[in-house]
């Protein structure tokens, strides 16, 4: 399997280095987080907000940016396009599930994105004395695990929504809607601690906090052992649910799928 991924990755890398400028611009999509950070900083200048000082906000949004970079996905658009154009047919003929193609492309592209994000993030965090990160081995390990979980949640939910294109031509509306929900409820526009208690309590049972807020908090504010365990359990359960639903949906899709015009 690893060998397959390496060769799929090589192909993606070639494609990506071809479109370098494109990727630089994609980074700007994360500009929203920077805007939100600036505005929150304007408020925290008058005193901590729900326990978040200016330094906490900077740490949160910088690490959040890193998490968002690593969990960025676009496979649903790809799948929608492939279904509409009928190019999925040739991918289905390969002895490997088309999703692996997407996973390899997604992971390869991360390398390129990190080359840009990591230096900027590190510079901001180092040059701002008020920021503080938990960089002990245990926190870092937990962070990496949570990050992997977050990536799976984002990727699987995105791919699942992309599968709607087997039945509707309006998939882009659903993809955008999932994106909007993630913006608000995964902690992209603000740390979830800024939401009213009742909203936070309800969100605990949704998959969204575990896509960004959860990993980010491990490295910034830190989490109580109980919350940490709950978070990992939630990630595990949601990944399981998504995988199960995806298998089911994929099976049904394959039964009904007939490529357009070919």
């Amino acid at each position: 399997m690893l060998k397959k991924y390496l060769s799929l990755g090589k192909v993606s890398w070639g494609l990506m280095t071809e479109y370098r400028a494109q990727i630089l611009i994609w980074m700007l999509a994360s500009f929203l987080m920077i805007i939100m950070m600036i505005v929150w900083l304007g408020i925290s200048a008058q005193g901590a907000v729900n326990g978040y000082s200016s330094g906490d906000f900077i740490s949160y949004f910088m690490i959040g940016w890193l998490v968002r970079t690593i969990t960025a996905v676009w496979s649903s658009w790809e799948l929608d396009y492939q279904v509409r154009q009928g190019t999925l047919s040739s991918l289905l003929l390969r002895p490997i599930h088309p999703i692996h193609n997407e996973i390899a492309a997604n992971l390869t592209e991360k390398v390129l994105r990190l080359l840009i994000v990591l230096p900027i993030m590190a510079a901001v965090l180092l040059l701002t004395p008020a920021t503080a990160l938990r960089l002990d081995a245990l926190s870092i390990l937990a962070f990496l695990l949570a990050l992997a979980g977050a990536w799976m949640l984002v990727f699987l939910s995105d791919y699942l929504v992309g599968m709607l294109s087997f039945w509707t031509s309006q998939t882009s509306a659903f993809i955008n809607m999932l994106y909007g929900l993630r913006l608000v409820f995964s902690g992209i526009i603000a740390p979830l601690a800024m939401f009213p208690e009742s909203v936070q309590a309800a969100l605990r049972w949704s998959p969204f906090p575990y896509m960004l807020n959860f990993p980010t908090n491990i490295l910034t504010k830190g989490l109580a052992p109980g919350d940490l365990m709950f978070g990992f359990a939630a990630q595990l359960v949601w990944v399981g649910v998504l995988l199960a639903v995806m298998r089911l949906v994929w099976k049904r899709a394959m039964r009904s799928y007939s490529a357009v015009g070919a």
Partner: protein
Amino acid sequence: MRYPKLFALFLKSSLLVELEYRSNFIAQALMGVFWAVVTFVSVALFFQHTTMLGGWSYGQALVIVALFTMTEGVTQMFLEPNLQRVVAMVRDGTMDFVLTKPVNSQFIATLRHVRFSGATNLMIGAGLIVYAMAQLSYAPGATQLALFALMFGLGMLMLYSIWLAMSASAFWFVKIDNMQELFRALWDTARFPISAYSGVLRALLTFVLPVAFMTTFPAQALLGLLEPETLVIAVGLCALLFFLSMHFWRRAIGNYSSASS
């Protein structure tokens, strides 16, 4: 006299196309509502923790949210669909058919297609303004309304100019998704009062990429908070942008030598 008539025809044919794809229309309209809610939440969240955002109260900031939503509507209705067509026409060479028509090319290239689903955003925005006025228990006078109409009109004309310049650059670059992304990213700043930003960013968003003239300043006009000099700057900047982009468009079509022939 010819142009209003032509525009009416454009509207009619766009409407017919839209009625052809009803599920798309409904999906787009619903997305308009959805994104308006997202914008609203992203602003309202701040007021859970503060009474003022960059010197704007909750009710006042709602006017900005309303104008942000309305501007999104204008973008979706007029700017986006036409830009997409221009890019496509430059790529496959059908731009020739536009240029050979005995009508101003800029007129066709920027107003030919109208996507009516964007109108939901205009309605949501208008509703939100009324709600904000009720929140503030404030009723704008005739002067404020006139100033608001003028400022918002100028803002939309600036927006139009920016999109026209993007269309024109398609003649050289063909692919302009990057430019659009860049503009979209900066446009996101417009959902908050310009005073929420400081220093370089504020200057950039006022004079270089004047999103402040699309939401913050028209909102000030409606609330009776507009400084007279802002109006003067708005007129000057709008004239400059409009003139420059029009000039740029002319050079672009002068430079154009069709595709593959």
